């Protein structure tokens, strides 16, 4: 009797688990659909004249017969507008690549110094890194803007990149990652006659690669989508990035919405591709900040 009851119990439990699993998975399916909806609506709208967006707002209309590729043909037509768009695209690419490479290298060196050595200012420096996270960038924005002007870096990529080069969260992440690496490697390197800098680049950098991947993607996302600061620094139209360029299309009367909607959809693609390739590193990258609290 007892045996039968327990097998019935078990079957009941399995059924409950199945229902739970279906419900929980179903909830995330629903949530994903809701989250994906605005992008889907934008993608559908990009196959219709942009003027409809001004006249009707955005809603999903799946009538394929009224869709066409005109907006995309326009973007690839090679006319003045399309050349402008691809210039923004190139500028964004350039800014992103330069930002990622420089930020990662410099933050790696800084974190290496703070993590791998015992020295008098170690704790002070570490505290200062954390302190910079405690003041939102927007407060420093105006004095920084004046500073960049007086340094004659206005309208230059250096002016856009330099203030953010030593990103506290990036340094912090490298620090977290390197804390778990064996310091005996340094001594081994020293015994082999390598100097401090050679050890840092030749021995430690290769084994820090996973941290580089994680930070590269977060850093790339930030640079690709950065808007406020480049908006202040880049003055001439030939420097505009995608975010600033698309923003200039937002005139209420213009007929630029063709380019805006198709251009916006294309602008998501590169960073989406990077994300899909490296997404497994993202969660590691984000563990960084959350560990210490």
């Amino acid at each position, binding site marked *: 009797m007892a045996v039968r009851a327990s097998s019935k119990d078990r079957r009941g439990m399995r059924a409950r688990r199945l229902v*739970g699993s279906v419900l929980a998975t179903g909830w995330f399916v629903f949530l994903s659909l809701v989250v994906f909806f605005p992008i889907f609506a934008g993608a559908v709208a990009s196959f219709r004249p942009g003027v409809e967006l001004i006249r009707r707002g955005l809603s999903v209309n799946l009538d394929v017969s009224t869709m066409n590729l005109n907006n995309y043909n326009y973007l690839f037509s090679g006319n003045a507008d399309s050349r402008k768009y691809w210039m923004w695209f190139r500028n964004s690419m350039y800014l992103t690549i330069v930002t990622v490479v420089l930020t990662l290298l410099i933050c790696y060196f800084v974190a290496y110094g703070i993590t791998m050595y015992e020295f008098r200012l170690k704790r002070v420096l570490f505290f200062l890194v954390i302190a910079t996270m405690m003041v939102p960038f927007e407060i420093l924005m105006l004095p920084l803007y004046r*500073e960049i002007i007086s340094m004659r870096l206005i309208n230059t990529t250096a002016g856009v990149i330099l203030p953010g080069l030593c990103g506290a969260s990036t340094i912090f992440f490298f620090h977290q990652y390197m804390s778990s690496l064996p310091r005996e490697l340094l001594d081994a390197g020293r015994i082999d006659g390598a100097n401090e800098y050679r050890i840092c680049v030749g021995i430690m950098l290769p084994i820090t690669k996973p941290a580089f991947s994680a930070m590269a993607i977060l850093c790339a996302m930030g640079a690709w*989508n950065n808007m*406020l600061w480049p908006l202040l620094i880049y003055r001439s139209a030939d420097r505009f990035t995608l975010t600033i360029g698309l923003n200039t299309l937002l005139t209420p009367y213009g007929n630029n919405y063709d380019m805006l909607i198709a251009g916006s959809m294309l602008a998501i693609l590169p960073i989406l591709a990077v994300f899909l390739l490296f997404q497994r590193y993202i969660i590691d990258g984000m563990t960084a900040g959350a560990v210490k609290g």
Partner: protein
Amino acid sequence: MKFKKFLYSQKTAPYVFALPFILSFVIFWIYPLISAIVMSFQDIGAVTADWVGLKNYAKLLKDNVFHTAVINSFEYMLFTCALLIPFPMLFAVLMDSNIVKAKGVWKAMLYVPALTSVVISGTLFRLMFSEYRTGQMNVVLSILGMAPVKWLKIKWTSEIALLLLCCWRWTGVNMLYFLSGLKSIDKELYESAEIDGASFGAKLRYITLPLLRPTTIYVLTISIYAGLAMFLESFMLWAGNSSPHNIGLTIVGYLYKRGIEKNDMGYACAVGVVLMVLGLAINFVQLGLNGSFQKEDR
């Protein structure tokens, strides 16, 4: 030769490595921070900067537009904290349990909004919340049998649009924070609790929540700053820095309006200093209440 030896010594090396940070800290953090405070006591013209004492702050006290901006930012911060902490945490707990299938897909999907720049997402939301009958949100209302709404012209409906935009962008990100926090919880704790016959609710309350605390405090701290300093979302939702009756104006929006659009840097810096004091004060109180300072003393 002597210099080279000094540069290569084990004592000098950490300072050489840390040098970029020290420079960046002095030039791009301390200096602008002090400038912001100094400028807030000045009236700044094209070439001149005159000391005006507390005049900018006295003006702020009487400036109704600034008060609107503070209230808007404050409301936004409170609502985003109330929405973007419990729900992502719940989703993370759900996803961490082994009843959800194909987790990777949903994690990636929920993260995608964070990849879109505010220009794009803000514009998409602005057009979805269009006042026309044919805008997506009014289509939804008409399905529910309600009349169309001028979403972005009314205070509370525009607040909904703004919060939806914010939740849309950050739910996936915050969920990942909580997921990474959950990863560090020892699974044996749950196993031994199960042996003791603990229910799902009891495990959540006595194991998950207390051990997620560092993550929660971290997310709360950054949410408070991000909420108070919100600007671009509102800038894009109204396609510019002006909204009817300033319903979308935030503190940073006002700072931008005064400093960049009207070139009144001194007054704008006073706005910035108030923002900084507000942010620091709220976070100090919050961190104090959460006992974060005691932990470091121990």
